[in-house]
């Protein structure tokens, strides 16, 4: 119950799809989604395999609360070895696709091998079939969505697909479902592309049952009330979306600007939530039309935007005059502050292109920022960029780059490498704002010290969602800590990492944790599935998952030497704002963190830790 207890295993090499029972012993230890699928991945692939080779596997996994009436209970994750990072990847997405997979009667899909020709998978209740995708190979996510629904004469299908970026194995391509929700990071789209798999379309009519409906409804309704009464989840996020952060993070001096040369962006207000909700001078209309919820979500932070029809990016392209997914904070930062571009419409257009072609806007924007620095240093020229003037602040450079990168044409092909490979190629690897090959997101660790340790130790490469200490250091949730000091941050990061790993394994959205603790979540999980889930047991599962991911990465060849930040963050002090004069104090936090984790000074889980967590 809560579980359908069935896994769909698809062998793309052989063209077969088979049902098998869910491993309930593992579910009892690893919960679901991120944790459970990671356990399958660790069991089934060689950690040293080529992420883009047939030996890698791609897992789409739901959690025990996916497809239930729990608020935000619609999430799924894609787990694989990341194309961008060579580390374990787990990218989480909302929309409606995850719940639909559960309604069709499946907890998880494991895809293995490589199809000899482009295919898509259609899962209609218990029937799963691979179909020829030659008619949609080379088309966008949006065209694929429309084509599949027409083909199956079913507008109620939900489609998760790659765009041309994934087909071309752009290293930070993503997987997009429901047109604009994405499993965004670490290049999971490239892995899907390498398998010649264009899309997975699902339609389910069976529904989801839980272990104890009465207890479940009581716990779910209590949780909804907490979200409604909380200022962040009840007011801030529905009104402004995650973009509520743009001006806040800029003011605290933690907005990485122009490839992290600066920590404050003079154009921040122009690309903020407030700007999205202000009528434009050109046409008197707002960029933001409305907010949207993902499946089951009572917060509804999603942005739906419309680009100014007279803007240079779309003036002659009426196909972009409709509403679609607008800017979230991380995207607005990467496409804007990281590149120095303050043109809101250009950012929105680039965001549309990222959704349409299947690109992670964080890694894309940060890579453009790195390329702009290379250009300004004279290491890239107009000849190498195909005529593009890659200057900081150039909206045209940004939007042209977005059009080129998915197609992997000309200079777009270089940009598709990501900033670590691009800067290394041009002899300046220190200009890559990455950890484990992945671009870090919208919080400068000089202004928010805990985020330095967060990025350095994140198992999927630099990421804010693995331990969002911004909550504590800036917003004061669950308690306020000083963002400018390193004291106590090792423990804070560990606590956030473990709790988040548990939440990512439930089918819920991590944004609920602005209001919820595991005390709100555990009763919902416990009423949904067997296992006697308490907050303590969930936290322990979270720690187990964290260590499991760490072990995978160690076997894949990572060491403590990879738990490092770019020199810029630990050697070049912030030039303005509250953090002026500060660098990140990673060296002060890391040894304490290893110790708290029960790892050796080389960052390896000790035998005692492995035994304690029953790994």
């Amino acid at each position: 119950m809560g579980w359908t207890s069935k896994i769909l295993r698809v062998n793309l090499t052989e063209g077969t799809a088979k049902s098998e029972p869910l491993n309930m012993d593992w579910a009892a230890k690893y919960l679901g989604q991120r944790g459970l699928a990671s356990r399958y991945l660790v069991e089934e692939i060689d950690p040293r395999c080529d992420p883009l080779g047939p030996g890698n596997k791609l897992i789409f996994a739901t959690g025990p609360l996916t497809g239930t009436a729990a608020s935000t209970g619609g999430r799924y994750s894609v787990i694989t070895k990341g194309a961008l990072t060579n580390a374990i990847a787990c990218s989480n997405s909302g929309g409606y696709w995850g719940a639909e997979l559960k309604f069709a009667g499946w907890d998880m899909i494991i895809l293995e091998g490589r199809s000899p020709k482009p295919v898509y998978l259609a899962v209609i209740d218990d029937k799963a079939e691979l179909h020829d995708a030659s008619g949609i190979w080379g088309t966008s996510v949006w065209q694929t969505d429309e084509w599949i629904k027409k083909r199956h004469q079913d507008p109620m299908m939900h489609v998760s697909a790659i765009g041309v970026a994934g087909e071309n194995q752009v290293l930070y391509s993503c997987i997009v479902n429901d047109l604009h929700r994405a499993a965004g990071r670490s290049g999971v789209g490239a892995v899907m592309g390498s398998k010649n798999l264009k899309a997975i379309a699902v339609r389910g009519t069976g529904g989801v049952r839980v272990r104890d409906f009465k207890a479940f409804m009581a716990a779910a309704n209590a949780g909804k009330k907490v979200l409604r009464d909380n200022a962040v989840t009840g007011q801030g996020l529905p009104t402004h979306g995650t973009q509520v952060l743009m001006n806040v993070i800029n003011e605290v001096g933690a907005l990485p600007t122009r490839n992290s040369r600066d920590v404050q962006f003079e154009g921040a207000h122009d690309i903020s939530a407030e700007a999205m909700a202000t009528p434009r001078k050109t046409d008197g209309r707002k960029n933001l039309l409305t907010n949207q919820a993902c499946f089951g979500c009572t917060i509804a932070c999603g942005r739906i935007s419309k680009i100014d029809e007279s803007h240079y990016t779309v003036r002659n392209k009426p196909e972009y005059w409709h509403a679609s997914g607008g800017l979230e904070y991380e995207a607005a930062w990467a496409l804007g502050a990281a590149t120095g571009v303050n043109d809101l419409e250009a950012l929105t257009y680039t965001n549309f292109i990222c959704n349409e072609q299947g690109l992670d806007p964080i890694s894309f924007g940060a890579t453009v920022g790195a390329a702009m620095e290379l250009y300004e240093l004279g290491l890239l020229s107009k000849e190498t960029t195909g005529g593009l003037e890659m200057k900081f602040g150039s909206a045209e450079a940004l939007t042209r780059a977005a059009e080129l990168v998915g197609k992997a044409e000309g200079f777009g092909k270089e940009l598709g490498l990501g900033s670590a490979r691009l800067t290394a190629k041009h002899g300046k690897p220190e200009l890559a704002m990455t950890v484990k090959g992945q671009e870090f997101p919208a919080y400068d660790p000089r202004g928010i010290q805990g985020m330095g340790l967060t990025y350095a130790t994140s198992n999927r490469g630099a990421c804010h969602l693995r331990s969002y200490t911004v909550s504590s250091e800036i917003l004061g949730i669950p308690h306020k800590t000083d963002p400018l000091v390193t004291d106590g941050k090792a423990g804070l990061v560990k606590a956030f990492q473990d709790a988040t790993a548990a939440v990512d394994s439930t089918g819920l959205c991590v944004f609920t944790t602005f209001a919820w603790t595991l005390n709100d979540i555990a009763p919902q999980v416990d009423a949904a599935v067997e296992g006697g889930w308490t907050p303590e047991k969930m936290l322990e599962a979270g720690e187990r998952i964290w260590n499991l991911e760490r072990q995978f990465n160690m076997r894949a060849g990572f060491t403590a030497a990879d738990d490092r930040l770019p020199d810029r963050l630990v050697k070049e002090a912030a030039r303005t704002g509250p953090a002026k004069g500060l660098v990140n104090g990673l060296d002060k936090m890391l040894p304490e963190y290893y110790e708290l984790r029960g790892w050796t000074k080389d960052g390896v889980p000790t035998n005692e830790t492995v035994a304690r967590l029953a790994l």
Partner: protein
Amino acid sequence: MLKALVIDPGKCTGCKQCEMACSYENEGVFNPAKSRIRVFDFHHEARFVPYTCTQCAEAWCQQACPVNAITTDAMGVKVVHENLCVGCKVCTIACPFGTINYNASTGKVIKCDLCQGNPACADACPTAAITYQDVEQTGYDKMKLWAARTGTGESAGPNAPAARH
């Protein structure tokens, strides 16, 4: 007092909690495919619209039913009696709104019956896009909104966001 569901699409976020509540109330399972209310996503227009039976006073479905399986209860609700329904689907053709549908797993038709006076969808809606109100006063909020504008010189044209607040 007769009551009716009042739907304000301007407030809908597309979360589908109404579909989950409906299917749980009526089928004992979380299953939007069996929900009597459905949320439509007009993505390119940035609009989400919940839609269900309006309980017509003179109901096409009721009049078309050849075995009198649809009756009107004291609250004005058109109720399908499963023991009488033969699954002929004539009502699904007669209904101009598409809000009565065949359920292949039971061989009967299903439609909204306002949950015996306590509609689960309205309870579950987090934004009050679906409310349950006096059937004779369903226009009250909209009237008030327009009344508030009267004499203020504010536009009353098609672009004035009457339903959006």
